[in-house]
């Protein structure tokens, strides 16, 4: 049943690569304005789950609704009725995505990256698109670097341009796939600050991250995944202060050891 209450609702989502089940009957809902961090060990399926929410990794079972509208398949994955390119684009429209490796287009400068979809998809004129793009860059503190190409920017700046690119088309929710994992430690802060500001503005965010400190401070909810399932799902105080499962306790212990 499509649930119009939720920004994102995944029901019994299963993802199989070859013979390996990466996600097993995962249920996850995210409400509008919520900031949900997904944590867990490597290979636990957290990035795959995030990618299925945008149908970048098509799920093999279950169904996913984005603001009440099914994404990827019509009538659940089992019916195998894949959406057309246009249907999928419409279902995806409320979602923005920020990738671990930025994926800025190297042949365009920062403002070109941010403005492209405005011109190609949203019918803006070149000057309108650039005005909007410039505002988005300003929001992430990079207006002075608007004319630089990606190779002239640091990792943290690239990721902020990528966030501006996602923001410029006014998404209702943004998915972040390990946004700081490819960054030098001293550049992590500037990206997390931008994300914190977005969260404070009320943006709906789902963030796969290894930054436990950020998850503890900025998230409304933390989801712990292991072996393709959600093991615990709750407010950060509970997840970090009062873990129920042995698996989560172990995981938190190892990440704390690593942080020292």
């Amino acid at each position, binding site marked *: 049943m499509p649930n119009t209450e939720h920004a994102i609702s995944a029901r019994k989502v299963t993802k199989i690569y070859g013979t390996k089940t990466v996600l097993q009957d995962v249920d996850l809902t995210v409400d509008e304005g919520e900031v949900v961090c997904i944590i867990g060990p490597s290979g636990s399926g957290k990035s795959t789950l995030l990618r299925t929410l*945008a149908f*970048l990794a098509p799920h093999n079972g279950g169904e996913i609704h984005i603001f009440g509208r099914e994404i990827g398949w019509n009538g659940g994955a089992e019916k195998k009725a894949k959406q057309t*390119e246009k249907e999928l*684009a419409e279902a*995806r*429209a409320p*979602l*923005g*995505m920020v*990738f671990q*490796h930025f*994926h*800025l*287009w*190297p*042949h365009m400068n920062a403002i070109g990256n941010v403005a*492209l*979809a405005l011109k*190609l*998809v949203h019918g803006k004129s070149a000057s309108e698109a650039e005005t909007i793009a410039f505002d988005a860059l300003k929001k992430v503190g990079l207006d002075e670097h608007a004319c630089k*190409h990606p*190779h*002239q920017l640091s990792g943290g700046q690239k990721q902020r341009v*990528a966030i501006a*690119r*996602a923001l410029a*088309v006014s998404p209702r929710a943004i998915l972040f796939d390990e946004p700081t994992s490819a960054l030098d430690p001293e550049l992590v802060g500037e990206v997390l600050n931008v994300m914190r500001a977005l969260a404070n503005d009320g943006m709906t965010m789902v963030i796969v991250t290894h930054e436990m400190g950020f998850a503890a401070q900025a998230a409304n909810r933390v989801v712990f995944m292991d072996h393709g399932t959600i093991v615990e799902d709750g407010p950060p105080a509970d997840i970090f202060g009062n873990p129920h499962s042995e698996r989560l306790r172990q995981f938190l212990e190892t990440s704390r050891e690593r942080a020292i």
Partner: protein
Amino acid sequence: MSLTSADLGLLIQGLGLTAWMTLWGTLLALALAVPLAFCLRSDRVWINAPARVYVEVMRGAPLVLLLFLLYYGGPQIGLRLSAPAAGIVGLGFFGAGAFAEILRAGLNAVPIGDVEAASMLGINRLKCIVHIEIPQAARTVIPPIFGQTIILVKESAVLSVITIAELTKAASELATITFSVQPFIIAALLYWALVEAIAQVGLAVERHYQIGGH
């Protein structure tokens, strides 16, 4: 004996014809290679299999056989091409196989995440190809494309078998008349000059499109 200026003129004409045939042959080859490369990358078998067969045949057969088939075999199935037309078509069909593989590799080198980023922003397949994949792939393929063009210049020597008076043909005719190897040496220098010119254009294009660390 030394060559007269009229003899030299013949060789220069031959060079001109070689350059002309290769130019059109290369343009035809590139025009065919772009759709071929996309067919090769398609995940639908009925699209990628014929393209794969075409590429393998063109890479597996010598150009001279293709020219014989086009020029001498063509009329038997009602395809009458003039020698220059057969030469250009032959070079074009032959080069398309090699260019298609180069373009396919160039398109494959575009990070999948760059395409996913476009798709998340609602940019459709066609616009993504035009605005994101081709401009990036173009940079990767510039050096091998010019390298393959140089190979085509040299392959074009076999156009002599279908009576085209390109550089090699002109040189061998002069050599027969003058009982000298001089025409071959001059022809070799002229080939080198043409190839070097193409290589320099290639480098200039590469430099023009270079983006920093890429």
